């Protein structure tokens, strides 16, 4: 038999067994029954929401936006707010409903299977929430999330964006290796009591609809990876304005905006991360930027993967409905063997991509950004403890800088390189696998449906337009392949270099 050390040594050979056994490892640690119960409820709720809100309005909204470029879907935002979707995945100790992230990814898939744009509108709010989480500034999280919860109570939706991309830097913002080679211009200048920001952000999803914006800026844009900081700017703040709404091909119900900052003052209390706050933590300034970016994208890319699965599933469903109801060459299309196999292929694309985001969510819950809420005892405390009874005490705790320091130690300093890579690798893999599947199925659905496929009123063409975005944002799929390469392949070989300029 094998000794302990032999087992350890065989299992860390490439592929590291920990990289490929996330589902099994999480099964041993997660509060599985509670997770399953909650996810079942959330999926059922998503289906009800689809039936009552999404399906009746998806086409109409898409059409309206084509007719009237500046239209903003406030009614939908209100509905989603009423249904509690903007606090559903915010921890209860911040005033949210505290559902788990597994249920969020399933939820996103459900909504996306009926309308990617509406799913994006809800999902992007959690991209904003993710940008808050990943800096682990618990005081700022507490303040902003409580405002979101108040907004829900008072029917005044309070949404959050994540604003990274700039006109000169898209891909370059997504990868620390590239940051310093890029042309970043969003500058934060230290002034009394805070910073002044100058610059602009483009393509920011939900911009015009949101109250708070997580803005990534740089104290010295010549050294962005060492001087990156995150701050929160509120809509209406002096020096902050919206530019145009982008003129997109699809996902029309979810506007993308230009954000413009001209000497916009951000008080220190809304700086959620800068070098000063992070000093003393291991890893150096660049190391911290890398870690935060990596944790952010590891989680956000799983959300995009869930969108991709939703797109693939939506396309499959439209094609199936067409095949069930259309006679082609004298018999129902569904009874042509070639069509059956195309549908089987589409089903496979959906099912296999879903596995990828679940695997990613598993690894994230065991040892990624989400791990504090998946730990069994903490999970139950966070889920059932009556935080609202002891709000003043809880608030005092959350506002204390000690809490932030503990979380940062735990989440940033105590994250190993292996864990970081495993999360990044699965995030990237799920992202490009599922979004490629979304595009693939959109193509297949339109091919199968012929003339019906190109009509707006038959719903499939919208998915085709909507799905393409998924291959572009949260890092293009080319960048995500690079990320997988680095995380799972390159790191094992010392001779590997990435992003080298070639002649």
């Amino acid at each position, binding site marked *: 038999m094998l000794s302990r050390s032999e087992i350890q040594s065989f299992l860390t050979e490439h592929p590291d067994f920990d990289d490929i056994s996330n589902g099994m490892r999480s099964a041993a640690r997660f509060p599985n029954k509670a997770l399953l119960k909650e996810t079942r409820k959330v999926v059922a709720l998503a289906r009800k929401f689809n039936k009552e809100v999404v399906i009746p309005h998806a086409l109409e909204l898409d059409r309206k936006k084509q*007719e009237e470029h500046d239209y903003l879907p406030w009614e939908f935002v209100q509905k989603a707010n009423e249904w509690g979707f903007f606090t559903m995945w915010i921890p209860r100790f911040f005033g949210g409903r505290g559902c788990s992230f597994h249920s969020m990814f399933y939820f996103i898939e459900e909504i996306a299977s009926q309308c990617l744009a509406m799913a994006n509108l809800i999902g992007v709010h959690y991209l904003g929430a993710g940008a808050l989480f990943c800096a682990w500034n618990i005081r700022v999280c507490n303040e902003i999330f409580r405002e979101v919860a108040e907004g829900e109570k008072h029917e005044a939706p309070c949404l959050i964006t994540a604003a990274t991309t700039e006109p000169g830097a898209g*891909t370059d913002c997504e990868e620390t290796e590239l940051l310093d080679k890029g*042309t970043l211009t969003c500058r934060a200048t230290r002034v009394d009591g805070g910073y002044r920001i100058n610059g602009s952000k483009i393509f920011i999803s939900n911009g015009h609809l949101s109250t708070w914006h997580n803005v990534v800026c740089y104290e010295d844009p010549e050294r962005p990876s060492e001087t990156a900081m995150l701050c929160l700017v509120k809509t209406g703040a002096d020096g902050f304005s919206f530019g145009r709404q982008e003129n997109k091909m699809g996902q029309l119900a979810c506007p993308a905006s230009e954000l413009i900052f001209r000497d916009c003052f951000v008080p220190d209390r809304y700086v959620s991360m800068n070098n000063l706050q992070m000093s003393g933590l291991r890893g150096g300034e660049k190391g911290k930027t890398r870690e935060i970016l990596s944790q952010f994208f590891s989680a956000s890319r799983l959300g995009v993967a869930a969108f991709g699965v939703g797109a693939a599933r939506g396309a499959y469903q439209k094609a199936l409905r067409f095949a069930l109801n259309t*006679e*082609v060459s004298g018999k129902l299309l569904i009874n042509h063997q*070639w069509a059956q196999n*195309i549908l089987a292929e589409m089903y496979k694309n959906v099912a296999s991509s879903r596995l990828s985001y679940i695997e990613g969510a598993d690894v994230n819950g065991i040892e990624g950004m989400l791990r504090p809420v998946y730990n069994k005892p903490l999970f139950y405390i966070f889920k059932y403890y009556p935080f609202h009874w002891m709000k003043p005490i809880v608030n005092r705790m959350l506002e204390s800088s000690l809490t932030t320091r503990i979380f940062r130690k735990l989440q940033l300093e105590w994250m190993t390189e292996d864990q970081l890579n495993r999360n990044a690798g699965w995030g990237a893999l799920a992202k490009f696998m599922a979004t490629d599947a979304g595009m693939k199925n959109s193509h297949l659905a*339109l091919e199968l449906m012929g003339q019906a496929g190109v009509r707006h009123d038959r719903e499939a063409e919208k998915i*085709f337009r909507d799905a393409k975005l998924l291959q572009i944002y949260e890092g293009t799929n080319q960048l995500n392949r690079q990320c997988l390469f680095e995380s799972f392949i390159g790191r094992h070989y010392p001779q590997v270099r990435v992003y080298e300029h070639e002649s």
Partner: protein
Amino acid sequence: MPAVKEKELKMLDKAAAEFAKKELAPNREENDMFPFGPFFDTVLQKAFALDFFHLILPESAGGMNQGLTALSRLLENLCQEDSSLGGIVFTTAAAQQIMLEAGSETELGKLADAQTARDCLIGLPVFNNPAEIPNMAEARKNGHTYTLSGTLEYVVLAGVAGHALIPARLEEEEGYSFFLVNLGGAGVEKSEPVLSLGLRACPAVDLQLTNARAALIGEPGRGDAYFTRMADKFHTAAAAMSAGVMKGSFKEALEYARGRFQGGQEIIKWSEVKMLLSNMAVKINNADMIMASACHAVDEGLPGWEQKSSAAALHIQEMACGATTDGVQLMGGVGYMKDYGQEKRMRDAKHMQALLGIAPLKRVKFLEKMIK
């Protein structure tokens, strides 16, 4: 190919390319706003004046008596800049070809003699093969005349053209027949323009016919034969459109990749970007070779020309769908925006893949015909 013919084609190439650059490219995004913006009548009228709608008609019908090669060159050039006008030329020419196959030159001559572009256009449900999905009306014979009733989906150009060629089934007859319907006549009701994926300035409507007077084209019950003979040829023309849109997408992406900096260098210097661009360029080179061979086979009636034509369309359309999707990808977020025409090319290419019927079914049929 005879030198004179080649010279003529070169002139056509040049004229079409110049027209596309001058008349189509500058307003591409605005024209694509239809039905939420105006229809591009002025451009259409200019195309009409240049005889773009008379290309394949015989001289006896007032045409230029050109073959599929000429039509394909015209379409490819137009679609490099904007496929919608290509769609209009294709649809009208396909209807004309059906009428030619049916021996209706006289009627065609009358239509071709029209004074305005709109009157010269002929609507046709060109994204469907009526033998596959019976999208057709019911025809009734009253003495020497016919009336049509029923609903037809997605009749391309029927919202803007003077006439449409409508497939309909005659009572107690096998198969179907084609009828020419005056779209301004009684009993013809048109829906609002159908909002579509691509080719938005080549609009379609759903038609509701109620005892609408119609003229039989060719012989009764021979609709499928005429459609098939047209489609055999016009697969090549459809392939040309896809080749054109693919070239337009490549040009745009290449230019962007040369000018866009990421990671401290023009993105064209990243070898992954080179790979994507190269994939597009390889497809375009192959499309050129296929088009040359298919056009020659169709125009010369070489043995197996029908297969070459069909294979060209199946392959080039599929390549164009992949290439134009990558064409967007290469430009990142900008590619997804309506400001560059790149997202439109992706929509147009996918839309065009549905020309003349369901793509995978055309593939199955291809083999069936081959082994028959």
